[in-house]
C-alpha cells in the first residue's frame, strides 16, 4: 500500500490518478483489518487495530482533501504534497521501530508546512507556519533525547521489545515523554499554534491538520504507553486534569469566536482533550473511546472546515455575522451545516456520542470531579454548535450573501463522503481492541 502511494510519485500522474490511488489505499487499508492476530509485526512494520484505523483515516482524508479542491489541480506540486503527506502518515502509523516512528512523526510537518505556506491565503500564514514548527519541534527534541537514552538502556529500538522490558524511569520524565504529543494533540496550554495554523491554512491543509495530524499526537501517546510501560501516576493526573479543564475552557472560547475557522479549531482542542485523557488513563474503555473519538472527530471536523470554505466562497468572508441567513440563499449548504453541527455536538446516533460516553465512565472511575468537567464540556459543546448553526443559517440573509450558483458536484460529493467514516458506528467490532 505504501508502495502504491509512493509509486504514484514516480509514474506519470494526473490529478485523477492520485485520487484513485487514495481510494485504492483506503480499500487496502480496510483489508488490513482482517488479521489473525491482535497485532502483526516484522522488523520495520507493526500493525494493530489502532494503527490500521489511523492509516484508513489518513487515506480517506487525503482523498477528501483532493476532491474538495479541484481548482488546485493545476499545480502538480499540490498533489505531490498530499501524496507525500499520506505516505509519511501511513509510515508513521505502521512503524515498529520507535526512532523511525519519531522520524516520520516529525517528517509529517514538512509537507504540512509546504501546504500552509504555498497555498494559504493571508500573509499571516508565515507566522502560523512558524508557530506550528516551533511548538512541535521544540517539544519533541527533548523527547528524542529521552528516546535515544531509553533505547540505549534497553538495548533495542523495537516497540514490542521495549514493552516487555519493564524497566522503570523517573516520574518527571512523564512530562517530556508525553510533551511532544500533547503539543501535537494539542492540550490546552500548548494549543496556541492550532487556531493560527488552521485559520491560515488552505482547505486541504485545514482538513488534514484537523483530521489526521492531531491524531498523530494521540497515536504517539498510545505508543509511548506501550514503549515505556506507563501507568497513570501523579504527573499523569496533573496532565489529565489540565487537559480536561483546558478542554472545557476551549469549548467556552468557541462561543466567543467571530471567525468560523477559529471556532472549529477551538472545538478540536476540546475534543482532543477527551482523547488525551482517555489514552493517558490507559484503560480499555479509555483507549477505545480515544480511538472512536479520533475517527469521528477526523471526519466531522474536516467536514466543518469544508463547509466553512464553501460558505467563504459564497459570502467572501469568514466572519460569522457576515454570513448569516444562509438558509434563505443556499438551503442545501444549510442542511449540511445542520447535519455536521449535530454530529460535532455528539447528538445520537453518532460515533462522537459513543466516544464521549465511554470516556465518561473512565473519568468517573478515576475521579468524579473529572466527570463533572466532562459533563460541562459536553453541555458547552452542544451550545457552541447550536450557536454556530444558528448564527450562520438563521435570520435574514446578510448583504454579503449575494445570489449565486448552488453547490457544485464536487462539493456535494465531498460532504457526502465525509459521512461515510461515521457509518462505521454500525461496525462496532472494529473498535474493540
Amino acid at each position, binding site marked *: 500500500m505504501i508502495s502504491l502511494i509512493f509509486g504514484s510519485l514516480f509514474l506519470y500522474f494526473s490529478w*485523477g490518478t492520485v*485520487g484513485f490511488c487514495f481510494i485504492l489505499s483506503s480499500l487496502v487499508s480496510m483489508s488490513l483489518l*482482517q488479521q489473525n492476530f491482535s497485532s502483526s509485526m516484522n522488523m520495520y512494520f507493526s500493525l494493530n*487495530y489502532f494503527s490500521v484505523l489511523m492509516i484508513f483515516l489518513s487515506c480517506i482524508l487525503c482523498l477528501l482533501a483532493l476532491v474538495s479542491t*479541484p481548482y488546485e489541480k493545476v499545480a502538480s506540486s499540490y498533489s505531490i504534497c498530499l501524496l507525500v503527506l499520506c505516505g509519511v502518515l501511513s509510515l508513521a502509523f505502521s512503524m515498529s521501530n520507535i526512532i523511525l516512528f519519531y522520524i516520520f512523526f516529525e517528517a509529517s510537518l514538512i509537507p504540512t508546512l509546504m501546504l500552509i505556506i504555498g497555498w494559504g491565503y493571508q500573509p499571516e500564514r508565515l507566522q502560523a507556519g512558524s508557530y506550528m514548527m516551533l511548538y512541535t519541534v521544540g517539544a519533541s527534541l527533548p523527547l528524542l533525547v529521552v528516546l535515544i537514552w531509553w533505547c540505549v538502556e534497553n538495548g533495542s529500538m523495537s516497540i514490542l521489545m521495549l514493552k516487555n522490558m519493564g524497566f522503570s524511569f523517573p516520574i518527571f520524565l512523564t512530562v517530556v515523554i508525553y510533551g511532544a504529543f500533547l503539543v501535537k494533540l494539542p492540550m490546552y496550554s500548548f494549543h496556541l499554534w492550532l487556531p493560527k495554523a488552521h485559520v491560515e491554512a488552505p482547505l486541504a491543509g485545514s482538513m488534514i491538520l484537523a483530521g489526521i495530524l492531531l491524531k498523530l499526537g494521540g497515536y504517539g501517546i498510545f505508543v509511548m504507553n506501550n514503549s515505556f510501560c506507563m501507568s497513570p501516576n501523579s504527573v499523569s493526573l496533573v496532565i489529565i486534569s489540565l487537559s480536561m479543564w483546558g478542554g472545557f475552557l476551549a469549548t467556552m472560547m468557541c462561543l466567543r469566536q467571530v471567525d468560523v475557522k477559529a471556532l472549529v479549531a477551538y472545538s478540536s482542542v476540546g475534543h482532543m482533550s477527551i482523547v488525551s485523557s482517555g489514552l493517558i488513563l490507559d484503560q480499555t474503555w479509555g483507549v477505545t473511546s480515544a480511538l472512536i473519538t479520533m475517527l469521528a472527530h477526523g471526519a466531522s471536523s474536516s467536514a466543518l472546515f469544508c463547509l466553512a470554505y464553501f460558505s467563504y466562497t459564497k459570502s467572501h468572508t469568514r466572519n460569522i455575522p457576515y454570513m448569516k441567513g444562509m438558509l434563505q440563499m443556499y438551503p442545501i449548504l444549510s442542511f449540511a451545516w445542520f447535519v455536521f453541527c449535530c454530529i460535532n455536538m455528539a447528538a445520537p446516533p453518532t460515533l462522537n456520542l459513543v466516544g464521549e460516553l465511554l470516556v465518561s465512565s473512565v473519568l468517573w472511575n478515576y475521579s468524579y470531579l473529572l466527570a463533572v468537567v466532562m459533563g460541562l464540556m459536553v453541555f458547552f459543546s452542544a451550545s457552541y454548535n447550536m450557536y454556530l448553526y444558528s448564527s450562520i443559517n438563521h435570520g435574514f440573509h446578510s448583504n454579503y450573501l449575494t445570489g449565486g450558483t448552488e453547490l457544485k*458536484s464536487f462539493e456535494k460529493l465531498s460532504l457526502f463522503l465525509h459521512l461515510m467514516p461515521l*457509518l462505521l458506528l454500525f461496525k462496532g467490532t472494529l473498535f474493540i481492541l
Partner: protein
Amino acid sequence: MAVVLRSLCRQGRHFRNLSGIQSPRIVVVPTLKQVALISTSKKDKGIGATVEPMEKSDELKRLTERFENTDKDNEENWTSYGYEPGDRDSDWFYHHFFMFATVTVGVCWGGFILSYMPDMKFADWCQREAFLELERRERQGLPLVDPNYTNPESIALPSDEDIGEQEIII
C-alpha cells in the same frame, strides 16, 4: 341543525336580559338574526372587469430575451460540475470518474467488503466457542463460571524444603 346549535350557543348576552320579565320576542328575534343572508349580483359574462397588464421594463425585456434559449446543447447554457470550468469534456469525465471511484467502488464495494469480511477479529468464533464451552460445562455438571482458572489439583507446587529461604512475591 348546525345553524340552530350555533345560534343557541351565542345567546349569552340575550339570556342575561331574561332576568327581567321580557316578552319572548327578545329571545326569538336575535336568534333568528344569527342567520346570515348572502346574496350576489347576477353573473353577466358580458360585462367583464379588465385589468391592463403592467408594461415590462426594459431590463426585464432584455433579460427575457437573453435567457429565452434554454436548449441544453447550447454552449452558453452549460454549467460546470466544478472540476474543470473551462473544459466541458474534461469536467464531464472527472465528475463521472470520481462518482464511480468514490461511491461505486469506495462506498458500495468497500461497504460490502467491510460488512461481509469473514469473522473480523474472531468475534463470531469467540461467541461460538463460548456457547460450546457453556454447553460442555452444563453437560458435565460443572459450574458455568469457575472461580479457578485451572484445576488446583493439577498444579504441583514445590515443597517447603525446595523453596528454602527463597522470597516469594505475589
